[in-house]
């Protein structure tokens, strides 16, 4: 899955004097307040972090509130799906016009019917809404399926992804992986046969 990256950052975290008793807790609390929000400086949505305090000393800010700045080194897990990258999520709702997906458990993604390739047709099977591929009958998209989709746009404020199923490498993850495995297997077989007969 694209869109996830692990970066290292050197940060200066300002802490209120009353929290000087437990700096690490205060630092974690400060960083926790940034979780699941898009940050311009990090260029992504902060999903997780790990901090180590670097210096023993800290600089005290001059002014009304004597906050002190502690230097920390943090490794940050960031999520920033760029357009045309691929992400994966679980389908939670299907309607004739849309497929609703949840990516990484927190981001809502939607694929509208205009972004679903011709191959997929909407069907009602056993009372369940689903999209079935007309060329591959086994390729079915229904509620609970893990879906790989291409990112069209990403709304940072609400963590909303507008997705597309137009590219051929999008669809049910399980089916796609099986296809690529079989393709690999086939390639190997062909190679062996060619070697055998020459």
């Amino acid at each position, binding site marked *: 899955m694209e869109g996830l990256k692990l970066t290292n950052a050197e940060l200066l975290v300002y802490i209120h004097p009353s929290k000087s008793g437990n700096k690490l807790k205060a630092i974690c609390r400060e960083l926790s307040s940034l979780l699941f929000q898009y940050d311009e400086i990090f260029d992504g949505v902060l999903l997780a972090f790990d901090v180590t305090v670097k210096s023993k000393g800290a600089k005290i800010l001059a002014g009304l509130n004597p906050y002190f700045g502690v230097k920390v080194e943090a490794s940050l897990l960031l999520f920033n799906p760029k357009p045309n990258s691929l992400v994966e999520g679980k389908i*939670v709702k299907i309607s004739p016009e849309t497929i609703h997906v949840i990516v990484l458990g927190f981001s*809502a993604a939607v694929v509208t019917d205009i972004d679903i390739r011709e191959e997929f047709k909407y069907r009602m099977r056993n009372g369940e809404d689903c999209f079935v591929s007309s060329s591959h009958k086994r390729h079915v998209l229904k509620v609970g399926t893990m879906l790989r989709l291409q990112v069209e746009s990403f709304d940072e404020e*609400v963590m*909303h992804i507008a997705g597309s199923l137009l590219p051929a490498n999008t669809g049910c993850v399980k089916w796609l992986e099986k296809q690529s495995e079989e393709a690999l297997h086939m390639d190997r077989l062909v190679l062996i046969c060619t070697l055998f007969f020459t």
Partner: protein
Amino acid sequence: MGASEALTDPSSLYNVGNNDLSDTETVLNVRNALASVQNALLKALSGSVACIDVNHHRRILSGIFGMSLWDHKPHVMDSLMDLIISLAATSGKYLDNCLNMLIRHFVPPPWVIDRLWQGRVIEQKQHVLSRVHGALLKISLLVPLAPSRLLPMLAHQLPKINKKDQVVVIYVENLLKLENSSIGQVGGGMIFMMVMERLRDLDLEIDWDDILQDDSNRGMFDMELEDAMNEGDELPVGSLNQDTSGGKIESLDKLMVTCFDHLESCNLHGRLDQVFEKLFDSFENFILNTYKSKVSQFLMFYACSLDPENCGVKFGSKLLDIFLSSNKPRPTRQVSLSPLWMSAVAYLASYLARGKFLPISYVASMLKRLVDECADYCRICNDDIRPEAHQLFYSGCQAIMYVLCFRMRSILDVPRFRSELIPLESILMHKLNPLMVCLPSVVAEFLRQAKAGGLFVVSDSFIFEDLLESELSRAFGGCERLDTFFPFDPCLLKSSNSNISGNFIYWSMVRPTYDKDDDEEDDDDAEIIVNGDEESDEEDEGDLDYALNKMSITPKHSFKNNMERERLMKMPSMIRPSTSPESL
């Protein structure tokens, strides 16, 4: 007549003018056609949500968000909800508007509020609110971050305290319903905070002092009021004058009952334990440091009464922990000058005294810890003679004495519990002199029972004259008068009290160690009369006068009447705060 039919077969519209149909039928047909067109439009929009542009279709969008379910029939409601859910889930741009539109339905229009007793209106309310809650849940399933955006909006749209409407009651009903749902897993804590804050604000808006002092003949609340409430009679009208409060008392009463119902349903579903933590947090933030609330704290009392083994025990332990942690600097949101732990120990004392559902073993164990804490304090205290320097000690001692006024007999009946109180004598005899500093009425009653129960005997130098409170008790109580703070004194609201009274110990129910009825002398019961028979007569006489002097808080009472005398001999069940300068 479906919209699609109307469009494909224009002749069906002409039937409207057919002479065979009556005018009413015609009107009905036209109405149905219009409604179904509207329905079809909403359904069509649901399917085309992706094509709606926020700039170009601003009018359509504002039209949609301006619609209200209250004005429509159920099938139109369904279409509208589908549209809203699609809008919210399909594009992030509309999420906030959709959520706001849904929350607005928590406040019904005036025509609904005015007719809440009508069956038709009740049905409509059920239709609307079930769909709104359903939509909120569906949106939170499709957009996981929706609840975190929803909560600040809920706080923002909470109605202000309105004198006439019961709007805030309905809003809180809906908030609590959300708490019960999956959204409550994320935001339950914040919902309780909102509700607790609103209860407190409403409680503080009501001028209880003004109302309580209204009945000058009675002078103070005592057993008669309790007995009336016990028997389920109407509260004496003079004491709760609705006109002065402008319907706020009624609102508060209804709010409390709504909250009680919610707690009861939580208990039925086995989630009271989980809910209790959040409830206590909001109690600690809003009620614990507010000394003038008279009713809101009963929310905790009720929760504890539903589940004494778990919640009941937890409440007392948490309060005790706050009191015992007074030595460590505790970051609290201080809104008052008195420390939080002083309020906590006052709550603990009142709770242990009044909670009928608390096993005596629990009360005894809490008392033991308080006694040990006071004993430790005695050992390490400094020589400062000012009462305000030893607030911890005096509040602890007063708490112990207050609880024992209610529980003395049951505690002394069990030898193990009785032995745990042995250090108490030396604590009360300490040079810090808690018997002089603590609230005189509490001390007097305690000493009387201690003497009658054979706990210990003190010299007669502790006779107080006409005193409810004293200079010294005021000094340790601080400007918030925590020396006269008994938060679980009987609840003054009728409906709320009917939920509480079954689990509440009224003073009239207490069997003190001395014989309450002075006409009968129970010689056989050695616990009650310590001295011999002959002396006991004189003692009783002396006691009678002493008690009368002690109990005559307002000079208006006449002692000539036997009934009056008897009534006054009883300990005030609710101690009125003094009229000294109000706290900040």
